[in-house]
């Protein structure tokens, strides 16, 4: 079965500093992995996805993630946080017929 674990429920950074949101996955198959973002009172928006092509995946708004099979990780990073990045972030792994969400990481950006 596929699952993801988001290692931090809450991350707080200052504007302009790097962002690291951690995700480990478990999968019986070669996984497809996604990061979605949810802004307050909004739906879920795809940031980026990994589907067995390049291990370093670039997404929208300057985010990127690196697939590391040896560490079963798919951490999300951004070099410089912006106030508008404050949101809930979900790491998602594709299951056999559905997608399994992590518990989410709330990112707070301080001025």
């Amino acid at each position, binding site marked *: 079965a596929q699952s993801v674990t988001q290692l931090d429920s809450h991350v707080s950074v200052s504007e302009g500093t790097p962002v690291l949101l951690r995700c480990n996955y478990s999968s019986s198959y070669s996984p497809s992995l996604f990061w979605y973002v949810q802004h307050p009172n909004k*739906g879920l928006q795809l940031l980026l996805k990994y589907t067995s092509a390049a291990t370093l995946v670039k997404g929208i708004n300057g985010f990127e993630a690196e697939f590391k099979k040896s560490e079963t990780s798919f951490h999300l990073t951004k070099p410089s946080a912006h106030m508008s990045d404050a949101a809930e972030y979900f790491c998602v792994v594709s*299951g056999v017929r559905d997608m399994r969400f992590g518990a989410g990481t709330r990112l707070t950006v301080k001025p």
Partner: protein
Amino acid sequence: EPEVTQTPSHQVTQMGQEVILRCVPISNHLYFYWYRQILGQKVEFLVSFYNNEISEKSEIFDDQFSVERPDGSNFTLKIRSTKLEDSAMYFCASSPIGGGLPNTGELFFGEGSRLTVL
């Protein structure tokens, strides 16, 4: 840009009442999903729908739940007799190809319908 739309954005209902949540998926998409998120908890898969039938459902999706695509554009989730624990945000999603293996595609989510059961 095409998007998934959901109505209502918020519904308050009494325990035991029937609720229908509506979704309009993106028009050329073939796969449809419902997920829910109880406050403070994970986003959980409920059901997937393809070719006018349920293709997969979770253990949460019991006999109180049903889905329908009544007219080729809407995709509805019905809860027959709501319970307090059904209070959650319900997300509809659609995909041009399946969201699971082996044809993993991006799921496009709506903004959610918040259901409050009193």
